[in-house]
């Protein structure tokens, strides 16, 4: 196992949409192990997504079991995850390994249903809420090239829409 280097904003690779995983071979298992070692090397880190270490594949690891007084599913490796249902919303504070020394308030769904493959390619489905649901939404955003910085809300907690700007001039995605 190795601790991998974490990309930091504004690295362009954090903005690309990651590719689905097709092979669940030993190389992939080794990568999952390295990704988990990388997550554990960061104090307080409850989740990590493959694009954060420069691998543009749809894999996230989440483990919020160290947090007191919450419901959770333990350690999760979610491959090609899809959020298939949302319910409610809540404001919470987030930070990111890829954005050091900054936290901000972000609105997320309170409860979600996630369908994914496990690290060996088997189908899994979880219903989750609160902190765990927030972590999974944060990590899945990484697979779509989004950071929590793209979703910040004012400290006054108003809800407002943001226009999404695209760079003009033939930038790759």
């Amino acid at each position, binding site marked *: 196992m190795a601790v991998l280097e974490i990309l930091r904003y504004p690295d362009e690779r954090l903005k690309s949409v990651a590719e689905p995983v097709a092979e669940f071979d030993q190389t992939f298992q080794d990568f999952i192990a390295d990704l988990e070692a990388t997550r554990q090397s960061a104090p307080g880190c*409850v989740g990590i997504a493959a694009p954060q270490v420069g691998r543009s594949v749809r894999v996230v690891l989440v483990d919020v079991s160290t947090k007191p007084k919450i419901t959770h599913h333990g350690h999760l490796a979610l491959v090609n995850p899809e959020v298939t249902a949302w319910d409610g919303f809540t404001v919470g504070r*987030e*930070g990111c*390994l890829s954005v050091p020394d900054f936290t901000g308030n972000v609105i997320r769904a309170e409860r979600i249903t996630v369908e994914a493959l496990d690290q060996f390619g088997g189908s899994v489905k979880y219903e989750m809420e609160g902190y765990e649901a927030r972590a999974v939404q*944060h990590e899945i955003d990484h697979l779509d090239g989004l950071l929590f910085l793209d979703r910040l809300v004012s400290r*006054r907690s108003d809800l407002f829409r943001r226009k999404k700007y695209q760079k003009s001039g033939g930038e790759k995605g």
Partner: protein
Amino acid sequence: MDNWYMLALVGKDRPGIVARITGTLFEGGGNVGEASMTRLGDSFTVMMMVRFDGDKHALRALLEPVSQPLGLQLHIDNIDGRLHQHVEPDVRISVLGADRAGIVAQVTGAMAEAGLNICNLETDVGGSEAHPIYIMHIEGQALHGVDRLHDAAQALLDKGVEVTVSEIDALIG
């Protein structure tokens, strides 16, 4: 040279204040660090950290030709720079209810006694002139633990002030 200053500018709100002030700073070799700029009532208020090579008098001489025509009061203090020293709030306190005299003092007094260190406080008055609604959001640190703040909130509720205390557990992922 690495001189940091705290600038405070206050005056009647009008379009272009931020652009004119920050533009003048930039052209004069200044560099804006952390800042808080907001409209309060019909005034506009600016507090910002500025790095500038010259002394306080040179900074004032740079800004006054712009701030005076805009009708802005200018105040400058020498400070230590200290960027990247964010204090992370671990608790959010919300007050929502009918407007009443002394509510800020009452809430912050009780919370200070219970060990609250305020990082950020914002209040607003909504509703109508006849029936104002008072809204206050505080983010801070619970220096003696969050339970003490819950107790203080309960005591305030018994006096008719509705206060919500929620823990902020910044998610890192």
